[in-house]
């Protein structure tokens, strides 16, 4: 049993200069066989393992991660959480996640710094206005909090926005989801890892999957850089590398992996206390607790696994940011990085069984997977444990690309694909 984190443990450990904290998770060598193995130790993978152990009593499981946990897209996103998606299926999926976020720090005994500071989406032309009003109505029919704001209300909610009518793309209005916000992305991975480890899950880092062994139509195990691991159930949560793992198993996915960039500025005093996103000009910005502006750019249009993107994408985003927030004109950017996102043709994820028995995929989150981390893990764990999807992820199956029953969320995905 792990010691609970509390104000008392903080004080106690202060006396030993914080040098004797118990390790949050072990560093085990892989066993010969597991009941299930999760490929990918990001937030989604660790959450999957956590809920498999907690809700489905599967304790003899492992998470294999080729690098270190949370070192991929979990640590590279812009930490935005919201559930204001258009279609019923997506509303169910993302709001399920948002509801778990609201109690996650308490559940994990780990402060994920979830902050419901609101997310505002701006409209810059008449079609944006119509689309955002429609989405607001759809959200409210699905029980998701959403309000439509006039230009004056946008200005009141976030005074530093330039709402002058003579800018290139004037702000005509916007939507606001107050329950939305941000969280500390690393803490989500670490909190789930600590929770899963406590229930007996083996978290194996620096262990890259090299092959998937099949016996006819069923999986038998994984070839890894730490040897062969036997298992009848493999849950792949490998984000940008999902197609690479799928190729090992001999199946194809409807994914393209592309670089998505983000950047942060030098830290400054509090200036923006919400998250503002704009689809049309492609700029979104929030401020971290350290004071840095956190800015998300768009994807490049070519397939790449290089974790770097094009300079002109960053330039375009910063142009838009400067037009919307003239106050940032002399801010200096500190860091810029890229992550590889797995994009589905309909901008919705895949949480699904495959034609191979015991092989499950949770992928296709594209540019917006972080917000869904707890819900995605919960529903993927259900799918793996019961060998059938939960009703909330039934629509997000792989077969939708054959049936044509797509969940088109290009409008709500916020980052233009």
């Amino acid at each position, binding site marked *: 049993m792990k010691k609970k984190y509390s104000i008392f443990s903080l004080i106690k450990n202060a006396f030993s200069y914080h040098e004797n904290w118990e390790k949050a998770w072990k560093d085990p060598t892989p066993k010969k066989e597991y009941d299930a193995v999760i490929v990918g130790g990001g937030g989604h993978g660790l959450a999957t393992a956590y809920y498999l152990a907690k809700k489905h009593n599967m304790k003899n499981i492992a998470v294999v991660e080729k690098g270190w946990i949370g070192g991929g897209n979990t640590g590279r996103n812009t930490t935005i959480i919201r559930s204001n998606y258009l279609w019923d299926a997506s509303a169910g999926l993302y709001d399920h996640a948002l509801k778990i976020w609201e109690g996650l720090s308490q559940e994990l005994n780990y402060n994920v710094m979830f902050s419901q500071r609101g997310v505002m989406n701006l409209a810059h032309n008449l079609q944006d206005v119509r689309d955002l009003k429609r989405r607001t109505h759809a959200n409210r029919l699905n029980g998701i909090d959403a309000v439509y704001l006039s230009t004056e209300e946008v200005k009141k909610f976030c005074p530093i926005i330039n709402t002058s009518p003579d800018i290139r793309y004037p702000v005509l209005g916007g939507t606001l989801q107050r329950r939305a916000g941000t969280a500390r992305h690393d803490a989500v991975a670490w909190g789930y890892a600590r929770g899963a480890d406590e229930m007996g899950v083996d978290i194996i880092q620096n262990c890259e999957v090299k092959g998937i062994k099949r016996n006819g139509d069923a999986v038998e195990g994984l070839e890894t850089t730490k040897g062969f691991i036997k298992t009848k159930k493999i849950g792949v949560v490998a984000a940008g*590398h999902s197609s690479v793992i799928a190729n090992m198993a001999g199946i194809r996915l409807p994914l393209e*992996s592309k670089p998505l960039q983000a950047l942060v500025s030098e830290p400054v005093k509090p200036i923006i206390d919400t998250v503002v996103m704009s689809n049309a000009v492609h700029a979104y910005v929030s401020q971290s607790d350290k004071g840095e502006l956190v800015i998300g750019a768009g994807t490049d249009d*070519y*397939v*790449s696994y290089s974790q770097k993107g094009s300079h002109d994408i960053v330039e375009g985003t910063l142009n838009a940011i400067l037009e919307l927030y003239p106050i940032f004109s002399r801010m200096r950017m500190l860091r810029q990085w890229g992550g590889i996102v797995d994009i589905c043709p309909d901008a919705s994820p895949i949480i699904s069984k495959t034609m191979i028995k015991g092989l499950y995929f949770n992928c296709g989150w594209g540019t917006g997977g972080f917000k869904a981390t707890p819900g995605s893990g919960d529903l993927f764990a259900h799918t793996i444990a019961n060998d059938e999807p939960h009703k909330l992820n039934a629509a997000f199956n792989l077969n939708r690309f054959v049936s044509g029953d797509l969940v088109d969320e290009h409008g709500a995905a916020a980052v233009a694909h």
Partner: protein
Amino acid sequence: MFVISCPYCGEREQSEFKAGGEAHIERPKQPTELSDDEWAEYLFMRKNIKGIQYERWNHAHGCRKWFNMVRDTSNDEIKAVYKMGEKPPSV
């Protein structure tokens, strides 16, 4: 960002080009006879290779012509560029 050698215009910045995805996906000759599975393969399923990929590009802000490229997607190194209709080079 990288420099692309357009087969018609020569070396230009990559920002002048538009990527067109995986190359050599042939349009079905008898669309009416395709099953749903075959349509899904044609429309949606992609190799999405980490490594040597054959792909289409368009010189959108230049000559506006389409051409093919062989590129290593793990490090964005361009291996070959060839015109539409030409035999894909082996690299």
